[in-house]
């Protein structure tokens, strides 16, 4: 019972890891080496198939070089001459299978692509005392190292899918590169589902055998197999076959080999993934771009648009232009008397052009927008794997081609027109001109008073008698001065008002522009980046899950 429960748990754990692999396969393209992903996809398929098929059977493959005695061992274990043995090399060209306990094994054998005529079953009735092997599917593979195997990948295929691989070695070939480099080293970590059989030990003296086994064990350990299971047999003499059976029966009874094999494969995949994309040192990226970076991006984009400059320009130009309206008219008139260099250059129309400068357009510098986006992704991806750095950068840039244009359009809507004239400017202008009129009128009064009152220039016309009173003169002069002073004061005050108002407006403008820039940055840069970051996080979460 306990073993069943254990199996169920293991299955669940395995299922979780496989789901994570599926996630990786989904998220990985473009970020992870496609070879590894292909491998992962194949493993998923294989795992799915194997888990669907009979869990009660354990597929054990006898693999090895030609002439090591796979077929002899196969026959010795099965107790029947099922697979032809011979001295010609290579002997076995097609895989033979022998099943202990046939029910449910059919689909499994189909999946393994074992030809019908090479399938054999041990009726369990025959196997008195061998009930331990019930559920064993023993495969006698072709060799993997002869010239025939160069064009035939059957052995290779089955070694990759068998639940338990029994490497049949012999004293002559146990250290062949074709076995070790291509399989044993590659499958290091599959300790639990790999058994090494040193066959043909009848050819060795006991001392030699001991040396040979020690050498083999050392070799295997050097290749990363921590606890190699080595069984020595002599298939032809029948020595050691019992031990092998015991090892097999152990695996068959526990019914865990299939799971263990898949787990080992997963571990191997994890190693490959980790090589391709080391999980250690991968910074766990926050799912959202933090505020500091958002502000940094907005600032940079604002610079690209020139938000502060636009504001300042507005403020300055208002200040200058307001003089035309709210300034002290006398000062303006005096300034106009000054000779203009443009006139001497006969470029008088340029002045109008400058005056006609209406502003109203804001645009973004594409290069600076690029650099701003680049800086954001660089900052976010520090320490990330190259592939993810590029992915994040591409996400950030996904819409940066349109960004300058969109920014320009969006901000132009609220761009200040430099030639705008507020109503109160006109009122003030009227007031100033009123004052000028008053001044002129006062002058006239004063002139009249002077002429008739003081110098007695003649009979004062009847209608002007009131104005001719010299006694009023001081008051008139006082009024004239007041009018001038009032004009000056108004000009100064309104100028200050303009500056104050412009400063306030600049602030509002800048705030509004910033707000819009930030909104655009959010939708066109930050969002894609965050999606990619989420993908990144999910990928590494899946990777950690696969690692178990």
């Amino acid at each position, binding site marked *: 019972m306990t073993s069943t429960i254990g199996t169920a748990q293991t299955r669940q754990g395995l299922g979780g890891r496989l789901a994570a692999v599926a996630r990786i396969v989904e998220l990985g393209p473009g970020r992870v080496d496609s070879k590894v992903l292909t491998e992962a996809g194949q493993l998923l398929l294989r795992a799915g198939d194997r888990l669907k098929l009979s869990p009660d059977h354990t597929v054990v493959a006898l693999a090895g070089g030609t002439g090591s005695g796979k077929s002899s061992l196969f026959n010795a274990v099965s107790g029947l001459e099922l697979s032809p043995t011979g001295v010609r090399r290579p002997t076995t060209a097609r895989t033979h299978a022998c099943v202990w306990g046939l029910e449910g094994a059919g689909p499994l054998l189909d999946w393994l692509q074992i030809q019908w005529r090479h399938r054999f079953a041990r009726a369990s009735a025959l196997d008195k005392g061998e009930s331990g092997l019930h559920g064993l599917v023993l495969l006698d593979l072709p060799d993997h190292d002869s010239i*025939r195997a160069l064009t035939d990948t059957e052995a290779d295929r089955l070694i990759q899918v068998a639940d338990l691989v029994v490497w049949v070695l012999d004293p*002559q070939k146990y250290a062949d590169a074709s076995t070790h480099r291509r399989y044993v080293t590659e499958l290091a970590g599959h300790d639990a589902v790999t058994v090494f059989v040193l066959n043909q030990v009848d050819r060795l003296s006991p001392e030699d055998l001991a040396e040979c086994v020690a050498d083999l064990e050392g070799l295997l350990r050097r290749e990363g197999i921590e606890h190699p299971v080595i069984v020595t047999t002599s298939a032809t003499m029948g020595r050691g076959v019992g031990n092998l059976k015991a090892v097999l029966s152990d695996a068959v009874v526990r019914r865990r080999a299939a799971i263990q094999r898949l787990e080992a494969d997963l571990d191997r995949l994890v190693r490959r993934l980790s090589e391709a994309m080391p999980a250690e040192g991968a910074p766990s990226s926050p799912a959202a771009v933090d505020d500091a970076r958002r502000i940094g991006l907005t600032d940079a984009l604002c610079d*690209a648009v020139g938000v502060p400059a636009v504001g300042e320009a507005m403020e300055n130009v208002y200040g200058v232009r307001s003089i035309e309206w709210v300034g002290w008219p006398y000062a303006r008139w005096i300034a106009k008397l000054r000779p203009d260099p443009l006139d001497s250059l006969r470029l008088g129309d340029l002045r109008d*052009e400058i005056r006609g400068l209406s*502003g109203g357009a804001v645009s973004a510098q594409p290069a600076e927008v690029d650099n701003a986006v680049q800086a954001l992704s660089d900052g976010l991806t520090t320490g990330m794997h190259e592939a993810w750095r590029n992915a994040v950068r591409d996400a950030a840039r996904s819409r940066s081609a349109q960004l300058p244009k969109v920014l320009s359009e969006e901000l132009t809507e609220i761009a200040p027109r430099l030639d705008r004239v507020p109503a109160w400017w006109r009122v003030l202008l009227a007031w100033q001109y009123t004052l000028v009129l008053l001044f002129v009128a006062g002058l006239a009064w004063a002139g009249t008073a002077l002429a008739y009152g003081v110098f007695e220039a003649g009979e004062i016309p009847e209608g002007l008698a009131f104005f001719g009173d010299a006694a009023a003169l001081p008051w008139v002069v006082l009024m004239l001065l007041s009018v001038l002073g009032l004009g000056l004061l108004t000009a100064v005050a309104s100028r200050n008002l303009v500056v104050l108002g412009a400063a306030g407006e600049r602030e509002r403008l800048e705030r509004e522009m910033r707000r819009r820039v930030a909104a655009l940055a959010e939708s066109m840069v930050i969002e894609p980046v965050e999606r990619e970051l989420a993908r990144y996080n999910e990928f590494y979460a899946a990777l950690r899950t696969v690692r178990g």
Partner: protein
Amino acid sequence: MKSAADRPVHPAEGGRRFDAVRPEGPEGAFPDHAETLGEQTLTFQAIRAGEDGEDDASPGAAATETAGAPSADPAAGDGEAAEAAPAGERSAATAPADGHSGGERSDGAGVPNGRPEDEDPGEAASGHADGSADANGPDISNDSKGPDGPDFPDDPDDADGSDVPGDADGADDDPDGGDDPDVPDGSADTDGDPDGGDDPDVPDGSADTDGDPDGGDDPDVPDGSADTDGDAVVVVADEDGSEEESGAAPEKRVQEKPLPDEVSEALTEALAALRGSVTDLVFGLDLPGVEEARKARAEILAQLDDYVIPRIHMSTAPALIVVAGSTGAGKSTLLNTLANANVSPTGVRRPTTGTPVLACHPDDREWFAEGGPLGSLERREAAEPGTAPDGLVLVSTERLPPGVALLDTPDIDSVVEAHHEIAHRMLDAADLWIFVTTAARYADAPAWRLLRLAKERGARLAIVLSRVPARSREVVTKHFVRMLTEYGLGQVDRFVINESTAADGMLPDHEVTELRLWLTELSVDDRRRAQAVQATLAGVLDSFRARVPALARQLEVQLALRADLRGDVDAAYGGAMAEIDEATRNGSLLRGEVLARWQDFIGSGDLMRTLHLRKPGRFAGKASRQGPERLSALKTALRAGLEAVVVSAAQRAAEETVSRWLNRPGAGEALAVAPGLGEPSDDLPRRAGRAVAAWQDHLVGLIRTEGVTKRSVARVVSFDAESLALILTIGMFGYGTAEIEVAGKSALPQRLLHALLGAESLRSISAKARSDLRTRIGTLFDDEVWRYVQVLDGAGIPDEAAATRLYQAMYNLEVAR
């Protein structure tokens, strides 16, 4: 040739016999295919049929020896022929040495040559075959090892042998032959050998051998030799043979001259040139195939040093026979047995041998001890476990015949990959190869890779099938031979060694008798040895014809790729430059802050203030100094904008370079991952800022020095150079072009500048300013490009002329040959 050999024809009878024989022979059915049959069946022993009848008639020597009486029976002369085929093969395998020796001798005798048969190689062959054939004939009935009278027991086997399989049996018989007390294996094949050594019989031997050579010898062997062989066969009177032999020997020596001096000198020079140009090769870029090329280069160099050059200098030096094969095949055991001393450690550990062991006759020791082949390997007295395997253990033993040295190599297929390289290096230095495989391994892929290599190199090869269980000997041997035949190696000398327990690292001596005889033949027969040596040398030199140009091609590919990669960089940065040119022309720079600052600058009246009337008075000089902060803000904005354009273009260029490199197969990818290549260098923004600032200053200077104001203007207006420089910049960058509509479509800056500076001066200043900007940015980009060039150079700078030199060296070598 072989076919001829196979068909037994009595030497004496020549063609006629041949014909006659065919029908008679049991194999008559497939006379044409005699070859193949023969090949398939291996009899390692050359079995002399003792066709009595024929013996008498023909050189009968063979027959006689064979005691062929029994054998003779069946075929009488004719039958023999049929069987001869197999025999021939066997002989080829087993007793090649004999054959050779015999052949040579006969040559010496020269008698044979005279024969008409000689003319047709085929006939000659047939003639030889006759000898062998005779032997064979007997085979059918008996195995015929002629000499082994005792072989008769074998006869049963032989009988089998009559059939193809029978031949195999014959091979088995060999051991039997060995058993015979008389001649060591001497079996028929051996017969020749022993004869050669000992008796006047030799001729017989030769006859047999003749058969062998025909069968076994490579077609390479000059026809002459073949003919001679045939002749020899013809001649084959035992006694005669002996006499001839004696006479012949000296002649052969004479024939075997070293190369003429001038040829040798030319060849030496050509080889030195080739070596030099191969040494110079650098394959820096990791292209597909570069590993192979590097390996090939190392191999060619090693082979030149280890083998070709010493061999050319001393063409008569002892032949180096390299024993190679799979781990556990028994190479060391074989060497120990042949040397009759435990010179190379054996054991059950795989792989066993790490350090090559060279065993030679004491007379030859000097040649091998000082330079000679493999001169670069340190010579050692004994294998020391744990030391690096880059040495060579040198031992001498009287048991080995002079003139041949055996070299035991590490394996070709164990987990220790370093061994494979050593083994291949040894093979590259070999005059002859002995390839050892076993009954368990003969179908292994690495073994056949090695055989293919031997074939490609045209190396003289002998194959030892070792550790053959006695009971499966026939099947295994037959199968192996068929595989060899299918592979086109059916005629190679073959030996079979039974599985037996080695004592003290040695096999029972009788197991290797044939091999020993083969060696002895080589030792004794200088001409034959020289032939083998020359054939291998020619094969190696021939192989250079393909291998050296392959290097040159790889080099050319490298050069082309390097140029491509360099081109990628230039294209990317050229594109960036063009982008900047465009941006500084079409007004796209005049956006954002620059635009706002400009509007500020002109809108606030600062622009007007930069101009002032040249009029003495209070106003002059006062107004101009207003608002420098706006001026500098514009200047800064321009600088920042230009810098951003440069940095962004550089960023894109870097990315494009890397992506272009990534699209180049192999090498590009490897190089592109160098850190930091995908982005501009860290200090680029800083340097770009500096460069732009310097350009702005330069522009001010230009206006000061060259801005010759129109005289009419200069009288009334003066201007501030700094501001004017900014106005010029704005104008240059395309103010007023379609894209920017600030103040209508006006060209305000241009008009102002035009009015102030005059058209001529404005044009010249603009042109200078623009080219100066390009130069400065170009300098920046040069530094960027330099990073890529360094990475490229880091991969090694190939010599462009090296490929040409290689071809030239190859051509010279061909001429010299």
